[in-house]
């Protein structure tokens, strides 16, 4: 029999739609890979916070020899040291989404581009609005992802005549987004577009707009490529004609790339940056995963 290879996967716990998607894809990858390659053991562990993730890394490393670690870090700064420690034992390190502050630690890096998510949305929006108009923005939970998206968005908008009327936290929560949008609507008589930074929140925003009966709002956009929103894009929805992918399936890709080296292929190394192209009615099909919970 072959020697058993262990791939540990450390990801955030499913606290909202997108992280839920990550957990789903990681567990899918685990099932598929373990079924296909009996010599590979994939261990998926979720953590509700950065602290807990560091603990989980310690526990995983203490309990067995890890051949590879696939990690979606909560934050770059906080996880860099602990991952470095795991690497010191000879583990192959694959980092997903957020790079560590010391890139030398990462053998493989599958990068999401949160800045591009914001920037691409902003560019499209500016174009559609003719560089004019009022937008309101809903942001998520105060974390790096959220921060980068907002940064990407505002940098682009600053170069236009578009005014950002307001930015408030809605914690990537549908409900809070609904409430916040209702209040935006009460506060601002003229809103041309809304950007919700995440499709979960977008659903709440759309409900609030629909209920208010306001008609001046031309666009309400989200991000992340949630399947319900992609359905809307595919159907050519007037208010939400585009989305930006930030597919939680990137974790699955990374796990597969890592698993490759234990099935006889040469190890994949280096940086793979996922682009954040606009999802439009034309290309929506390829971003649509009807079985994913997200």
């Amino acid at each position, binding site marked *: 029999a072959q020697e058993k290879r262990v791939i540990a996967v450390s990801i955030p716990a499913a*606290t909202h739609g997108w992280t839920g998607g990550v957990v789903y894809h990681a567990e899918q990858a685990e099932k598929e890979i373990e079924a296909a390659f009996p010599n590979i053991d994939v261990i998926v562990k979720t953590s509700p916070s950065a602290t807990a993730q560091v603990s989980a890394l310690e526990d995983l490393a203490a309990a067995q020899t890890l051949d590879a670690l696939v990690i979606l870090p909560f934050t770059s700064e906080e996880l860099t040291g602990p991952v470095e420690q795991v690497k010191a034992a000879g583990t192959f390190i694959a980092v997903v989404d957020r790079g560590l502050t010391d890139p030398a630690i990462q053998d493989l890096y599958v990068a999401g581009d949160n800045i591009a998510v914001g920037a691409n949305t902003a560019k499209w929006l500016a174009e559609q609005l003719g560089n004019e108009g009022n937008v309101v923005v809903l942001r998520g939970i105060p974390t790096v992802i959220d921060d980068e998206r907002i940064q990407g968005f505002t940098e682009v908008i600053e170069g236009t005549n578009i005014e950002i009327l*307001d930015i408030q936290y809605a*914690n990537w929560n549908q409900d809070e987004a609904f409430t916040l949008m209702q209040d935006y609507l009460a506060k601002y008589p003229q809103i041309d577009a809304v950007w919700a930074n995440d499709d979960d929140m977008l659903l709440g925003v759309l409900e609030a707009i629909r209920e208010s009966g306001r008609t001046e709002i031309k666009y309400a956009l989200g991000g992340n490529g949630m399947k*319900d929103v992609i359905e809307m894009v595919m159907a050519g929805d007037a208010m939400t004609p585009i989305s930006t992918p930030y597919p939680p399936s990137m974790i699955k890709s990374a796990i597969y790339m890592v698993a490759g080296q234990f099935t006889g292929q040469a190890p994949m190394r280096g940086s793979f940056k996922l682009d954040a192209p606009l999802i439009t009615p034309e290309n929506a099909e390829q971003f649509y995963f009807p079985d*994913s919970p997200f």
Partner: protein
Amino acid sequence: MTAAVASQSAGPRRIRWADMGPFIALAVVVLAGVMINSSFLSGTNIANVVTRSAFVAIIAVGATFVISSGGLDLSVGSMMAFVTGIMILAMNRLEPSMGGYAIVAGAGIGLVVGALCGLLNGLIVTVGKIEPFIATLGTMGIFRALITWMSDGGSIPIERSLREPYRPVYFGDVLGIPVPVILTLVVVLVGAFVLYRTKYGRRCMAAGSNADVARFSGVSVAKVRTTAFVIQGLCVAIAAICYIPRLGAATPTTGQLWELQVITAVVIGGTALRGGKARVWGTVAGALILEVIANLMVLSNMVSEYLVAAVQGVIIILAMLAHRFIK
């Protein structure tokens, strides 16, 4: 001896200024709102705010029972998410055979599930004799995990065909009063009736005020407290019933941190956390105060988005301080 008898004739009931505290605080917050932003008083905004506060208010009425009987329930937020999830799954399953009636059936199932969740909490606390804080912290984790598991971390949306017939339960109105507001009023009236006008209410206060006295007076403290938790569960289910049509889905974030809002509403309303006193109407005022403050945070332009939570915290503390000094 005559003096004693004379004074025994029932005098006028004392007016308690202290009991007016929450309403005065509400008035102050509303006034502040009017000064901060003129659109605060617009019909839609007021309707929005009041309607939105329905969930917390309804759950908080249940919490008033639990707290005044000497308990505490931290699980209401997760329970809300769990019950919502079960209801949607049930409605979706029943829809093919029952059509629109699936909503009614699902609501019924929700009430039963809510009551059972409450019963679970109640039994752990009374039969298991575990500090309510810890017991319901445990079930909070359990309910939250269950909804996450049921939804695979994503969301459980209600069937499209049910959305339209179900919509009015949140968005509709009767004679201009939004349905959730009417529901809240009904819940509060029933709650106030039970607490102030029935034997059970008396027993609740006794159990919360001094459990030994209650026991020695033949009141089954365990039964009374368990019942309070069941009532809490029912209130959660009622809130869930009018919550579903709003966004049409249950997610792992549904109802997150509502437990804190609910408890805050109850305490701002004048119910003491150590039990023995219940102020149902105050509780409603408390829920409104919280919602109005949140609304004002968005409507005003004075506060950095980062500091909203700080300002809310400060306002709540100030409101409680004001309340103290009115006394």
